[in-house]
């Protein structure tokens, strides 16, 4: 297990979610689930983060914000879309101002479905993301600088 997998730092962004999934993401930090056991920290700063946890279907106003946060994160990085709205737009998919899922704006690595996604499945999604993070680190080491 590499050091990257032992110390994943997270940034969480609410892209027009109903706050249901956000509460569940925060529930992961509470004594019941305590994700700091796995070295997971909620940084609140894209430049320190390794995993971008995003909830909500992304509307036309905040799609630039989502892109901006993603681009500020240093490589290697992964994106976890939490909740059915972040996966596909959910019941809001046909709304006039909803992009219809995070994947319409930035590349998503792990989809965590659910309405709201349960803390267990969010933690499982992060653990899946760690494997992809490690693959990306190895890929980054072998590619020429600047092409990644």
């Amino acid at each position, binding site marked *: 297990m590499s050091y990257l997998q032992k*110390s994943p730092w997270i940034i969480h962004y609410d892209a027009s979610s109903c706050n249901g999934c956000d509460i569940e993401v925060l529930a992961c930090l509470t004594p019941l689930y305590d994700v700091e056991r*796995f*070295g997971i920290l909620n940084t609140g700063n894209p430049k320190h983060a390794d995993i971008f946890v995003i909830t909500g279907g992304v509307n036309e106003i905040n799609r630039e914000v989502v892109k901006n946060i993603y681009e500020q994160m240093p490589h290697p990085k992964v994106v976890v879309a939490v909740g059915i709205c972040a996966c596909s737009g959910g019941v809001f998919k046909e709304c006039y101002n909803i992009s219809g899922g995070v994947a319409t704006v930035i590349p998503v690595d792990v989809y965590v479905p659910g309405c709201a996604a349960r803390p267990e499945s969010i933690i499982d999604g992060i653990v899946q993301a760690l494997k992809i993070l490690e693959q990306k680190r190895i890929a980054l080491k072998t590619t020429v600088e600047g092409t990644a």
Partner: protein
Amino acid sequence: MNPFLAAALFIILAPVVGVLITGLDRILTARMQGRVGPPVLQPWYDIRKLFQKKQVAVWGAQSFFIFCYLIFIIFTGALFFAGGDILLVIFAFTLGHVFLVLGAYVSYSPYAHIGAERELIQLMAVEPMIIIVAIGLYQVNDSFLVGDMINHPGLPILLLPGVFLGFIYILTFKLRKSPFDLATSHHAHQELVKGSTTEFSGFTLGMIELAHIYELVVMLGFIWLFFGNNLFLSAVAIVVIMVLEILVDNCTSRVRWQDAITSAWFVTLVAGAGNIFALSIM
């Protein structure tokens, strides 16, 4: 001990000791909040991970300043544990922090700028007390050399209770613990994102974390000076003070900078300067 050997031992062993103390700190903090907490080596994993990440830097100069910060903090500690002049130790320590402030000022980020300003305010709050510590220890030992202070046969703390109290007060600033974690905090979601460290990433942030660990060992070394050659008592004091710091960190909220600086200067004036004055007329 040979000063060069002592300095080399500090450079090698301080990260080990510092990581263990920081790791235990995080576990104890978690336990106080009813959580399990990370593994004890978690700070080490964090630093190694940061060294594996790519850098995002608007200006290359910030990495240079942070490198200087790390070098001067290591120099400070090496000088301290080699038994050097405590005044030089203090000024090298301050110079290290000035490099951190410069590094934070390099970017255009408003968060980093306010963080850097607060870092300067913290320096202003802390420096008078640290100089008083040096003066008090000189009055007791008749020497500014750390090498002479650690051979003091008695307990300097008995003559310097006020200075010790003042030092414990400003230690909270130096360890970046609540209520005085104005510039940057270990905890997420503060009003300044991450304050002075907001704009650093990857290798540069790793150097900052490493410097903080060296800094912690140097600050705890200062406690040792108050107990002369009594190693057992100084070890007990370091453990008790760290537990107290963690307790205070967990049950207080961040104060405004005005309160931080006035309270620090008040404690410095009453406890620190009062103690020095009493010693000089005795």
